[in-house]
Every structure is written in structure tokens, then in C-alpha cells.
């Protein structure tokens, strides 16, 4: 009986936290599309957030994407050549690198760097009573703190993952020339043939959904902190585990959508 009870309570907990996230997401979404949300204060926060999440890491992001991307493309092309699958490299580039790999790596990077930071930041603000300070001054916490962060997540993921793709396709020119002896013209022709509008749209949409949830979930869990300092690590780890689960879920869902 206790086993059944455990299973039952676990499932109920899961469903509860899932509906809680969806409810919260809906609340944020409504605010995003409300013009009154965009006050001068909120815009300042939004600019700060984009600055911290995207602009500040841009040099490192570009360097890693160039180094890592070139390496990956080189290894991939060599493998394709050895297996005699040269004619499929366009599909591999567009279908795997651009639509799957770039968003995924970007999401991992942003989650590790900004997701965890935001989770902690919100939890610390809660513990410090800064949230109640904002409320005392009749400043809506959702409008002022949450919405800019979530919008920043969407913008950053979409822009950075596109940038990542562009860098990878750029290093593809170099390696297709070196490994396959391919001209730029032939390379772009192969890419164009394998490029599918629906795939690109799905990849962009996926980036949007990724950006929305990988910031929303840390924010939500950060809010669950109590007024004790010890609650910070608890909500941060819980938040990050949930973000990980969300990333996997979104990835699987996008693959299912792609199949049909």
C-alpha cells in the first residue's frame, strides 16, 4: 500500500509542479503582450539583462563556436568522407547542425551561465525581502523582474543560436574546400538543396520556446525561496533540475513535430 501511495504522491507532485509552471507561464505570457508592462524601469532591466546574457559573453561565445564548431565540422566531414556518404553532408549540416545542435548548445550555455544566476538572484532577493520592498512601493514584481528576464531569454537564445549556426556554416565553407575540394558555389548549392523552410521555422520556434522556459523555470523556483538563507541552494538545485527536464521535453517534442 505504501508503495502505491508513494507512486501516487510522486505523480500528483509532478502534475502539480507541471501545472504550476504552465500557469505561471500563462501569467507571464499575458504580461508580455500587455503594453502597460513596458515601463521605462522594465526596459532598463531588459537592456541590462540582454547585456549580461548575450553581449557580455559574445566574445567568448564566438571564440568557442569558431573553435568548437570548426573542429566538429572537420571531424564530421572526415567521417562522412571515410564512410562514402559525401553526398549527405548538406543534410547533416542543415538537419543536424543548424536545426538541432546550435539551439541545444546555446541553450546549455545560457542555462549554465544565466539560468543558474537568475535562479539564485531571485532567491536571494526573496530572502533579502527585496521582493516585499518592491511590493511596498507598488512595483509589480512580475512586470519589473520576471517579464524582462524571460523576454531576454527568448531574444538571447534565438539570436545566439542563429549566430552559432552562421559561424558553423562559415567554417563549413573552409572544411568542405579542404576535405572535399569543394568550391563555395557548390557548397552553397548543396546547402540550399538541403535547407528546408519548415525545418528552419521549427528551429526558430524551438529556440523561442527554449528561451522562454529556461529562464521562466529558474525564476519560478527562485520565487519559492523562503526567508531563510538555507532555502537558496534548495530552490536553485530544484530549479536547475527542472530546467534540464524541460530542455529534454522540448527537444523530444520538437523531434516529434518534425517527424509529422
Amino acid at each position, binding site marked *: 500500500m505504501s508503495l502505491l501511495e508513494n507512486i501516487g504522491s510522486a505523480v500528483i507532485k509532478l502534475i502539480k509542479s507541471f501545472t504550476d509552471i504552465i500557469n505561471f507561464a500563462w501569467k507571464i505570457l499575458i504580461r508580455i503582450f500587455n503594453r502597460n508592462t513596458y*515601463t*521605462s*524601469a*522594465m526596459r*532598463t532591466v531588459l537592456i541590462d539583462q540582454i547585456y549580461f546574457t548575450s553581449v557580455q559573453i559574445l566574445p567568448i561565445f564566438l571564440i568557442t563556436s569558431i573553435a568548437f564548431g570548426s573542429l566538429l565540422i572537420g571531424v564530421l566531414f572526415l567521417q562522412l568522407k571515410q564512410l562514402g556518404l559525401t553526398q549527405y553532408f548538406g543534410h547533416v549540416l542543415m538537419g543536424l547542425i543548424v536545426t538541432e545542435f546550435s539551439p541545444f548548445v546555446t541553450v546549455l550555455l545560457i542555462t549554465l551561465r544565466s539560468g543558474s544566476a537568475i535562479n539564485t*538572484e531571485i532567491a*536571494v*532577493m526573496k530572502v*533579502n*525581502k*527585496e521582493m*516585499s*520592498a*518592491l511590493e*511596498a*512601493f*507598488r*512595483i509589480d514584481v512580475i512586470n*519589473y523582474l520576471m517579464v524582462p528576464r524571460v523576454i531576454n531569454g527568448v531574444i538571447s537564445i534565438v539570436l545566439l543560436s542563429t549566430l552559432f549556426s552562421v559561424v558553423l556554416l562559415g567554417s563549413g565553407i573552409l572544411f568542405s574546400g579542404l576535405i572535399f575540394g569543394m568550391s563555395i558555389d557548390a557548397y552553397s548549392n548543396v546547402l540550399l538543396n538541403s535547407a528546408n523552410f519548415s525545418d528552419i521555422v521549427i528551429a526558430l520556434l524551438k529556440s523561442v520556446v527554449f528561451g522562454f522556459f529556461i529562464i521562466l523555470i529558474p525564476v519560478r523556483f527562485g520565487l519559492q525561496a523562503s526567508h531563510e538563507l538555507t532555502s537558496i541552494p534548495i530552490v536553485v538545485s530544484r530549479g536547475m533540475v527542472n530546467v534540464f527536464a524541460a530542455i529534454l521535453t522540448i527537444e523530444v517534442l520538437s523531434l516529434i513535430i518534425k517527424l509529422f
Partner: protein
Amino acid sequence: MRNFIKNHPQQAALVSIDVPLISNQSVLMNIALIKQYHENMPTAKAEPIVFSALRRLNLENIAFKRNPDLNDEERFFAMLLRAVMVRDALVIIDRPLKIVPHMKNIDYIFQALKNIENLYLNCHIYDYDWMREKYGELSR
């Protein structure tokens, strides 16, 4: 005090140890935030107002400091300035001696309040009864 806030929900502006400054933003941003949020005032317009208010208290040097870098007086005045940024502010100072524990004489606060007199409508100071003597003549 609670009743007072309830009666003036739009004007009440608290200065209290329980309403801290936002620690990951500068004093300047903390004070400007009120104008930016309540009146949707652009940053470029809100910041000069904050600077002029800080100047009145000779505190321009703390504009870019953050909460942990401030001493008790600076923190108190930053909170006070934030409060007076509320439109037609009814400033409520909750237990000022909790914010600035080593303050000997409350006149210090009154001097500051006088300097920024035109920025707020009214000011109420709430404190425990046994602190009465600290307020000297005013308490009578």
C-alpha cells in the same frame, strides 16, 4: 502605521529596515526606479532628478554605490530619497534607529528632511514608545 498605509495606498512611501534597497543595483537606479516605474519616466529624465536630490544631501558620491557598500547613514538617506520619489509622497519612517543604530540625535534626520522639504507632502516617524527620549522636544 499599517492603517495609515491602508488609507493612503498610492502615496505611502516607507523608509524601513524591512523595505531594503535592491542590492544588485546602484543607489541611483534604486531611487530612479520609482519615477521610472510609477510615471514611466525615461531614464535620461529620471537620473538628473535623482542627482539633484542627492546633491541636496551632499551625497552625490554614493550614486553609483550599491547597498552593501553604503554606511548606515548613507543607506538611510538613500532609502529616504527613494521614498520621496513617490508622487505626493507621504513618507513613513519606521524605526529610524534600527536603520542607523548609532545615531545619537534625531536632529540629523530632521535636518535632512528639511533640506528636501519640497519633495514630499508629509512625513511621519514611527518608533517604540521607549525610544521617546531620543526624539527630545519633538516627542512632547
